[in-house]
């Protein structure tokens, strides 16, 4: 396969730290027993590996009890577990207009639950006061996308967390785009549930993610099955993590994820600086290309390394395909599974082309994309 420049890190990070590959390989060969479902040495070793991985992840998010973390395949499953496990008929939930479908589709699928969508501004930022104004007597949950996968806009979750706490409403964060690049303090921000991706900015393998659940959140499981505990009962256990975690877990992948988290912990400031540098370089370059429009805030508001842009009058998928086919650069075009966000910024008809940077990208990658867009913008 031809060499590609990869700028689709918001979907998943492509290159991982070498320890991640090595751990995945080693653990697959040597420690693939079923964690939590057996008393033999290999099963217990696998369980201990999981316990260690969760301790590392808990430390990273400032979570005091690692048992309150459930490891799962991705952010989508984590969001489903949190939202569907909490909401009941008659409840009211508040989301923002920047949510991914992995939030909006879940809340709309909940039976007899009222949904309020708080509109973000045209740059993709939510006013926390609007969230407070949407609160009703039966509001039980506020779900906020920490950073948009379309515009990169980072929300003021500290302010929204204060509001949720003041009104005794559970607060859930979709940290798919921020875990690994923006600090998340569970206690400080009054976060009751945190859904995160392991395979994006935490540099774990594909198929890794997780959910943190606060001790006061009365979640019901959405997944039923063997937990390796209380097997005599017809019901799921009532303690974490077993109450939410059924079936065989991918121990090698979670062990490798813990290596990714340690990598991020060690180099967090360098990672941030590099992503900031690359993002600014891309934005500054795009601003100088005629016929190209950047969506969201180009300069002075808090953002992650996700940049959406459009060529005036051209469908985003056509531009994305041209970038791929002619210049061998992987970007993502279309609606990015976030229709609400595109409605908010006015691109629901066209979609956008999205470039998303990661630690393993270089200045040359950005310059190659700018060269490609410059050429294509003139056609």
């Amino acid at each position, binding site marked *: 396969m031809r060499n590609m420049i990869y700028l689709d890190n918001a979907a998943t990070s492509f290159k991982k730290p070498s320890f991640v590959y090595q751990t995945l390989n080693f653990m697959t060969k040597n420690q693939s027993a079923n964690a939590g*479902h057996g008393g033999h040495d290999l099963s217990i070793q696998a*369980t201990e590996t999981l*316990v260690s991985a969760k301790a590392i992840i808990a430390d990273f998010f400032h979570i005091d009890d690692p*048992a309150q973390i459930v490891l799962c395949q991705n952010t989508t499953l984590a969001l489903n577990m949190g939202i569907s496990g909490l909401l009941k008929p008659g409840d009211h939930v508040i989301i923002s207009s920047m949510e991914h479908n992995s939030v909006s589709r879940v809340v709309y699928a909940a039976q007899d639950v009222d949904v309020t969508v708080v509109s973000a501004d045209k740059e993709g930022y939510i006013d926390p006061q609007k969230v407070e104004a949407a609160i009703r007597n039966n509001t039980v949950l506020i779900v906020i996308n920490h950073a948009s996968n379309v515009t990169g806009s980072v929300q003021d979750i500290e302010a929204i967390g204060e509001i949720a706490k003041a009104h005794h409403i559970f607060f859930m964060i979709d940290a798919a785009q921020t875990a690994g690049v923006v600090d998340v303090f569970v206690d400080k921000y009054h976060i009751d549930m945190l859904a995160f991706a392991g395979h994006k900015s935490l540099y774990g393998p594909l198929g890794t993610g997780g959910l943190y659940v606060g001790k006061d959140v009365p979640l019901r499981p959405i997944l039923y099955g063997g937990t390796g*505990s209380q097997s*005599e009962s017809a019901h799921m*256990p009532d303690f974490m993590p077993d109450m939410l975690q059924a079936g065989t877990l991918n121990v090698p992948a979670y062990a490798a994820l813990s290596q990714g988290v340690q990598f991020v912990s060690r180099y967090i400031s360098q990672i941030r600086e590099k992503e900031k540098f690359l993002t600014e370089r891309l934005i500054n370059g795009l601003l100088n290309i005629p016929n190209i429009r950047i969506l969201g805030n180009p300069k002075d508001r808090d953002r992650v390394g996700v940049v959406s842009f459009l060529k005036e009058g051209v469908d985003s998928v056509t531009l994305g395909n041209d970038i791929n086919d002619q210049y061998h650069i992987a970007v993502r075009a279309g609606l990015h599974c976030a229709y609400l966000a595109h409605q908010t910024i006015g691109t629901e008809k066209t979609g956008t082309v999205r470039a998303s940077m990661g630690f393993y990208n270089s200045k040359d990658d950005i310059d190659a994309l700018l060269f490609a867009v410059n050429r294509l913008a003139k056609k």
Partner: protein
Amino acid sequence: MKNAWIIYSSITSASRIKKICAQKSKQCIVHQTPAAMSATGCNYGIRCNQKDLPFVLDLSKELKLTIKGVYIETTNETGEVEYEKYDLPR
């Protein structure tokens, strides 16, 4: 020397205790519990030297881990292993 068994709701809890015990140079093993201690189901516990029992109980309390039972393992005159229920201090 007698061994103590501390039974937890899940293997996760038992594994956390084992990890911390190892850091404190206290040897203990995670085991699936024999039927004599847990009549049904899958339960896991820590098997440690009885002298380390107070440490494990304090640690469990500190971590807010639910203990389902504590047993002292003894061997009778005929060589059979027996488990005597240990009442937790209130």
